[in-house]
């Protein structure tokens, strides 16, 4: 530690701290433009000048000058003021002082300093830039006149986001921030450059007006994906508007990072498509009605159907994007007020193993926190296009690899972006993950890459495991997966020698029931390589939506009550019956999920809260047929989603900004989102809606207050007891899905059958997933996100495009599976290997699920040019 005096205030700072650091500690303000704690210093703008007493007579840029012991620093003097003033005047040669129309007004250092020095204009008279703002990009505008060339936008894009989309072009008078070769900005649209710009030079083109002095900031959680980033929202209280969003350095698990959805996705809150009133169907149209009429319609029909067909004719579908409290109350409503055991959620319907079966699947493994990525030597990324699925987690991986020297092995059937920084890319055929992992295990065991004793101490049934993988020789695995035997050996060596490997699994593995074996195989590998609970690595499962984890924790599943307590167990039911004061129905014996049961005519009424099965159920034809058969459908949502257009009654709920609650993220971390504004129009908080419906049905659901609901959850579910969610920083407690640190695991035995060769006339394998900029129905209501990703397409490799009689980017093609067809523009993507096509699942006007059948989101297709 060294002692420094800043303007007479003595502080102690670490060796190596800058004068600016010391000043911050002393509470002395020094203006800065180019400095940013997150970025490597450049000392470019020279606005942070200070004097060092007894030192050389020149002025020093405090942000790059190290403090020294006993140094005495002056931050205010005539000399400094003069130099600063000159600097400002040089900037004002170009800077237009158009503060009244600038979005940065009120939070701009240049404005403050200009004001401080009382400058009206610059002494220096030179031709001004007078450039028109560059609005060639639909989302981000660049106003070069206002730019002070601090370079922060460039550095944040290079250093934080790792995209490098923009740079300094030309020099001197002509210098500006631009894209290479004046190409259109083609980037992640994370918005870091915009939220970092110290002046109003780089802006979103979808500014929701909010002056710095009349917004307050509310720290909350992003409502999109399962990463669970903390985001700070700008709120205009008087107008009841949310006007901005950004990640804040040091806040939440994401720290610096935000993705395009975290930055601009919030705009759906004020979308003009929000439902302002409940709707009731008459004939083909949905018409607005009063809450009274809507609630009457709901209760009347539910009661009638229960009377006529019994409570089991009513089913409920909960939501991966609504809070724990709402999901909890929802299943309680279906189970106790309706009396039906049929509640479920789409994730569980797709793959029970990571839904209500999660604790069993984990088999003692504990989900590792994301921060562990910063500490491991190796990251094994399987079946996850992390930068698109969970962009901030993807960025954490990138940081671990590029800054913290972690190695990365990517196993994916497509050439994902992270593959570019991977030490190894295992590009396997679609659906062969299990064989690949078994091949690696085989290699580790036969070559004793993990010493025998170590393996035996980690795995109870080592011999059984050895036998089960005995056929997975490198040559055989190469034949099945298309990954060279030598690569498999190399991966095995890397995994066996790493001290601490994080295994991340994504959509291709966990979102797909057909691939349950891959997860099982991966678990064996985790335990074998010593990355079970006592190890330094661990397992992480990407979660698609903000509460994909929580909806299952809350027992919105047919066989489990909240906290994965079996509904088949009479003791468990008794406990809940006592607490709820009502009988809890036993799970029925029907086979198939509620969509199948609807097709079989067993479901007469379906209550869908915050879900869009028409878009999300894997088999698009089947779900449409099922909804068509159901007599009475209630949809509770913000918009007329594709599903809501099948509804008989639509109940307008509110967005996360208009209520309080908790989400449980991919780590099992329970985080509270705070209310920012009051409910819009006649929309009601979803807990209130559930209570009101219950009341009409003659029952009381006790609490429409989120905190009280959470208390009830904590009381009934040991999983959530002791979870604190009241942290101001937005980081709650973490749920553990496994009983404890049992270091010895039992290997699951994996049977594997190679995916059958597709029929010859359907030569392409079609896969799907989310685009970086979209998730669920809400992102499609953000104008900014639609501006950067507005329509669907089919991605093909360049080679395939050439071979399909020279298809060019943008040409319309017909994609046809044995089950359906879609007409889409073709798009080149280097991600797609030959023979693999990709269609995003985000666009309601091109529902890719009509091409799939059964419970798999992979199919064979043929593709031909139509125009």
């Amino acid at each position, binding site marked *: 530690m060294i002692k420094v005096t800043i303007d007479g205030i003595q502080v102690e700072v670490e060796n190596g701290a800058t004068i600016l650091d010391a000043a911050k500690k002393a509470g002395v303000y020094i203006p800065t433009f180019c400095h940013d704690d997150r970025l490597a210093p450049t000392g470019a703008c020279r606005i942070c000048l200070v004097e060092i007493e007894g030192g050389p007579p020149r002025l020093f840029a405090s942000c790059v000058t190290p403090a020294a012991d006993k140094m005495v620093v002056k931050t205010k003097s005539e000399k400094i003021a003069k130099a600063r003033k000159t600097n400002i005047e040089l900037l004002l040669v170009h800077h237009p002082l158009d503060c009244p129309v600038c979005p940065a007004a009120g939070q701009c250092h240049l404005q403050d300093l200009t004001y401080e020095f009382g400058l009206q204009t610059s002494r220096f008279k030179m031709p001004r830039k007078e450039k028109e703002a560059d609005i060639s990009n639909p989302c981000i505008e660049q106003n070069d006149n206002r730019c002070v060339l601090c370079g922060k936008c460039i550095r944040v894009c290079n250093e934080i986001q790792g995209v490098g*989309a*923009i740079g300094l072009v030309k020099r001197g008078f002509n210098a500006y921030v631009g*894209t*290479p*070769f004046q*190409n259109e900005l083609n*980037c992640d649209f994370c918005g870091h450059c915009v939220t970092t710009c110290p002046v109003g030079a780089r802006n979103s083109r979808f500014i929701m007006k909010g002056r710095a002095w009349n917004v307050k900031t509310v720290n909350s959680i992003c409502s999109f994906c399962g990463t669970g980033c903390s985001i700070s929202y700008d709120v205009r209280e008087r107008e009841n508007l949310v006007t901005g969003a950004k990640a804040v350095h040091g806040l939440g698990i994401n720290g610096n990072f935000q993705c395009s959805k975290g930055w601009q996705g919030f705009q759906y809150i004020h979308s003009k498509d929000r439902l302002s009133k409940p709707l009731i169907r008459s004939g083909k149209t949905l018409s607005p009605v009063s809450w009274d009429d809507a609630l009457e319609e709901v209760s009347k029909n539910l009661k009638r159907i229960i009377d006529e067909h019994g409570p089991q004719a009513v089913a409920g579908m909960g939501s991966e994007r609504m809070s724990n409290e709402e999901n909890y109350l929802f299943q309680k409503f279906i189970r106790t007020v309706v009396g039906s055991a049929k509640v479920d959620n789409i994730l569980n319907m797709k793959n029970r193993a990571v839904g209500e079966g999660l604790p069993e699947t984990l088999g003692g493994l504990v989900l590792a926190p994301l921060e562990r990525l910063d500490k491991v030597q190796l990251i094994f990324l399987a079946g996850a296009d992390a930068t698109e699925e969970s962009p901030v987690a993807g960025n954490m991986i990138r940081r671990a690899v590029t800054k913290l020297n972690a190695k990365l092995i990517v196993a994916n059937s497509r050439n994902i972006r992270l593959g570019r920084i991977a030490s190894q890319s295992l590009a396997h055929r679609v659906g062969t993950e299990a064989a690949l992992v078994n091949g690696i295990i085989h290699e580790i065991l036969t070559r004793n890459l993990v010493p025998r004793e170590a393996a035996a101490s980690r795995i109870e049934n080592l011999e059984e495991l050895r036998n089960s993988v005995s056929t997975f020789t490198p040559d055989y695995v190469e034949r099945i997966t298309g990954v060279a035997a030598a690569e498999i050996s190399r991966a095995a060596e890397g995994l066996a020698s790493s001290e601490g490997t994080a295994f991340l699994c994504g959509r291709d593995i966990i979102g797909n029931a057909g691939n349950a074996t891959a997860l099982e195989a991966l678990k064996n590998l985790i335990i074998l390589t010593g990355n079970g609970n006592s190890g330094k690595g661990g397992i992480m499962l990407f979660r698609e939506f903000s509460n994909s984890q929580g909806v299952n924790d809350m027992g919105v599943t047919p066989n489990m009550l909240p906290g994965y307590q079996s509904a088949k167990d009479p003791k468990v039911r008794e406990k809940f019956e006592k607490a709820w004061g009502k009988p809890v129905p036993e799970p029925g014996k029907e086979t198939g999920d509620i969509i199948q049961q609807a097709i079989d005519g067993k479901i007469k009424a379906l209550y869908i809260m915050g879900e869009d099965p028409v878009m999300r159920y894997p088999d698009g034809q089947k779900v449409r047929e099922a909804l068509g058969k159901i007599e009475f459908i209630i949809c509770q949502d913000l918009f007329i989603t594709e599903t809501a257009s099948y509804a008989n009654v639509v109940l307008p709920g509110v967005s996360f900004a208009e209520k309080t609650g908790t989400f449980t993220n991919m780590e099992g971390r329970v985080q509270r989102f705070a209310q920012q504004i009051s409910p819009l129009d006649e929309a009601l908080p979803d807990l209130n809606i559930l209570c009101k419906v219950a009341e009409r049905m003659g029952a009381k659901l006790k609490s429409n207050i989120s905190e009280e609901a959470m208390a009830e959850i904590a009381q009934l579910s040991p999983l959530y007891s002791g979870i604190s969610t009241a942290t101001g920083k937005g980081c709650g407690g973490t749920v553990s899905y496994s009983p404890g640190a049992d270091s010895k695991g039992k290997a699951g035995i994996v049977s594997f059958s190679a995916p059958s060769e597709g029929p010859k006339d359907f030569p392409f394998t079609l896969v799907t997933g989310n685009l970086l900029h979209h998730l669920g129905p809400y992102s499609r209501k953000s104008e900014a996100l639609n501006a950067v990703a507005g329509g669907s397409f089919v991605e093909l490799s360049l080679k395939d495009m050439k071979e399909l009689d020279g298809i060019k980017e943008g040409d319309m093609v017909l994609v046809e599976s044995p089950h359906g067809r879609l007409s889409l523009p073709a798009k080149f993507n280097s991600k797609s290997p030959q023979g693999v096509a990709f269609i995003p699942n985000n666009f309601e006007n091109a529902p890719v699920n009509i091409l799939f059948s059964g419970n798999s989101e992979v199919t064979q297709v043929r593709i031909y040019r139509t125009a």
Partner: protein
Amino acid sequence: MCANKATTLENEIDLGKTEKILEKYQTIKGALIPILQKVQDEYGYVPEEAAYLVADRLGIYPSQIFGVLTFYTQFHLKPRGKYIMKVCCGTACHVKGAPGILDRLQATLNVQAGETTADNIFTVERVNCIGACSLAPIIVVNKDAHAKVVSDDVANIVNDLKAREA
């Protein structure tokens, strides 16, 4: 995403030449500028595709390469003509009528300074003092200097070169 750009373009230019240069210099630290110079020597300018390829191989962002290319005036981003017509606009040449000469040349070839004629034969450039002030005003065509030019000479110089091409 951006770094993939090179592969998205229909490769009209022969990137093999860039590959060869990279093979030789890729591993040398600080070789970016020499590499770009060599690329320019090969193609006469630095093609976008080549810049993306260099970026990819050196592990830097194309935006950074573009910064270097636009920082130094020695680099050209568009194909240049067979004859580079440099009109000196230094002080001495300026005083002796360089602006009029440049105007005339631009009008004759129907391009602005910095541009190349559609047939890729002529590129007009405005340069600063080339150190031959006693010969002002001066036009340098590739390596040949035309001294003490008057406006009416411009047409002749151009016509001679055109005749050579015919």
